[in-house]
């Protein structure tokens, strides 16, 4: 059997491998190559070496601002999303009436597209700020907290489902034993629940970090970067560079490569760190 699998391995892998190469690997490599060139379309690329990277960091003050804004946003939203999601998950795994109903409700925002969400929250937030005679574009802080709120609203339900799955996997005996030993609610949480759901934490952290870092649609629809470019996150900044300036496509591409490296490194480190804390069931 195993021998057969080995023999037919190429047949089964090849179609996927080809599509993977065509739709992922080739564009990816081309993207990296383009970041070293000046181009209008893929055909007209001219090699310029590292100039694009230099321009991205030296001539363009927006890039570093966007990077800093994105980092702040990611830290705040990762913490709030995971805490809220975990809290909801512990609540909704209790033997209460209507937990299934609430799980569905909390999950639902995740099914709405980012652009739609952005516009809906834009209206909601503006109608509240309207009482004070301003709107979301008035201050970068409004935009920041608006984005955090939106992101929470959208992702809490999804993360909650993952935490619920993790909590439900914890064997009941552990809780029973803790109860017999007279452990308090908090120490049960600290010493049993949290260590046992570490695999879920790893996944949730990974998803929230990468999603927050790569946020684009919501950013575009909610604030569009206003005021000025103060609330433009990295992805939006790259988009603006690519399409907003003649001859800057290469710089946009260079930023995108830097962006990829940052996301990849952070995600990798995070997986290592939280992965180490996981315990075997």
């Amino acid at each position, binding site marked *: 059997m195993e021998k057969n699998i080995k023999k037919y391995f190429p047949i089964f892998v090849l179609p996927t491998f080809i599509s993977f190469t065509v739709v992922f690997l080739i564009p990816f490599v081309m993207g990296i190559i383009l970041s070293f060139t000046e181009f209008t379309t893929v055909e007209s690329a001219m090699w310029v070496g590292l100039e694009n990277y230099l321009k991205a960091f030296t001539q363009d003050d927006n890039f570093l601002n966007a990077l800093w804004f994105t980092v702040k946003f990611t830290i705040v939203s990762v913490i709030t999303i995971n805490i809220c999601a975990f809290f909801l998950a512990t609540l909704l795994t209790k033997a209460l009436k209507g937990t299934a109903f609430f799980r569905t409700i909390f999950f639902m925002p995740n099914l709405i597209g980012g652009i739609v969400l952005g516009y809906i929250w834009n209206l909601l937030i503006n109608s509240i700020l309207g009482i004070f005679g*301003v709107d979301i574009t008035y201050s970068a802080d409004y935009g920041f907290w608006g984005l955090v709120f939106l992101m929470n609203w959208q992702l809490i339900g999804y993360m909650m489902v993952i935490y619920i799955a993790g909590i439900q996997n914890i064997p009941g005996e552990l809780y029973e034993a803790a109860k017999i030993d007279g452990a308090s609610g908090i120490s049960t949480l600290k010493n049993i629940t949290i260590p046992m759901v570490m695999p879920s934490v790893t996944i949730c952290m990974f998803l929230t970090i990468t999603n927050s870092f790569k946020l684009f649609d919501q950013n575009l629809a909610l604030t569009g970067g206003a005021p000025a470019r103060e609330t433009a996150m990295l992805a939006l900044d790259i988009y603006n560079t690519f*399409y907003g300036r*003649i001859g800057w496509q290469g710089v946009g591409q260079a930023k995108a490569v830097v962006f990829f490296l940052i996301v990849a490194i952070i995600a990798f480190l995070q997986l290592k760190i939280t992965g180490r804390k996981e315990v075997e069931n």
Partner: protein
Amino acid sequence: MKKSLSIMLVIVLVISLFSACNRKNNNNEPTGQSSNENITIRFLNFKPEVADIYNDIAKTYKDETGVTLIVETAASGNYEQTLTAKMGTNEAPTLFQINGPKGYANWKNYCADLSETQLYKHLNDKSLAIVSDGKVYGIPYVVEGYGIIYNKEITDKYFNLDNKATEYESMDEIKSYDALKSIVEDMQKNAEKLGIKGVFASTSLKTGEDWRWQTHLANIPVYYEFEDKNTDLSSDDTKTIEFKYSENFKKIFDLYINNSVTDKKKLGSKIVDESMAEFALGQCAMVQNGNWAWSQIKGVKGNVVKAENIKYLPIYMGLEKEENQGLCIGTENFFAINSKSSKEEQKAAEDFMYWLFLSEKGKKYVTEELELIAPFDTFSEDELPQDPLAQEVIRWMNNESVTTIPWNFTIFPSATFKADFGAALLQYAQGTKNWDEVKKIFTDRWASESK
């Protein structure tokens, strides 16, 4: 034996994968049957609102000449993105649009020389075309104009008010900023009596919706500045700017935001559609926009503005001799032909342009459906669009006593410059930036984006 079988299987799989892709491609192309069946030209259309009309034109053109015209349309505000994406493929447009000298600079490797084309020979004003080194690369196919659109019904109502505080009797007397300011402010005081919420429609300052100010309105001070300095617009002298008439820009901008339907701190979420709807619903008396806005005004449900009451006023901002100032008339729609297409396709695209603006059928589409004011001598006086705003533009254009302001914003350095200036205008309206800072952003960004 087994090995060869597995290799064969792999090949079959791969082939079926590719043939599936191929088949899909074939479906996209309408099958041609007549004599010119092999020629297919692609046109990347700029305006989503006229996509259906172009598809109709393509059908008629196919019936007449046999040439297949595939019209693809870029989503609103996404033309450059779509063009960039399409240009690299083997489905690159043969006929596309550039938006002026800056657009040409971006696409110069793809623009064919059009100086020998029939269409260029019929162009009324050759100075409108995009010329570089004596060769023509872009032919304007429409002229458009913008200014302050006003609803005569409401202004007449104002002039008949008992308690009006100005001596003016009709809009024809308004020929300067001071006159405009005095009636606007008095109208704003009497807004309730006039049944309006504000004199001007909301100054839409949401990101991406602020082009009426950061581009169109800014055109006027920029035009006067370069005019004063006798700057050659195609030279490098346009790389720096003083924004000499910034105070004049501020005057009219203040007038817009202080006498508006919307409180100025809330302008950051207003979009152009909302402004036009306010005008169409009679909630305001004036709005700055171009003649393309007619379709928007017409399309608003419950619209109360009568076509015969829609008039144009030049944008006065307190400049010298402004009583002789006309509307801003020009274009940012230039046809360009892809120089990387085959010779036959380029020829076919030329023929199509010519057909559209010369043949009876083509002209009918242009004036009646696309409602374009075409700048070619093949159009006679009575072959002009009938919508009220286009009529007004033509009236102002033919008015010998005023000077028309060209669209110099086509030399604005980049979209980033415009976006940054627009954002600064919003912050000025909200009170978080003062005018000196706005002015500084204008001059700094102009210089840095011109590099």
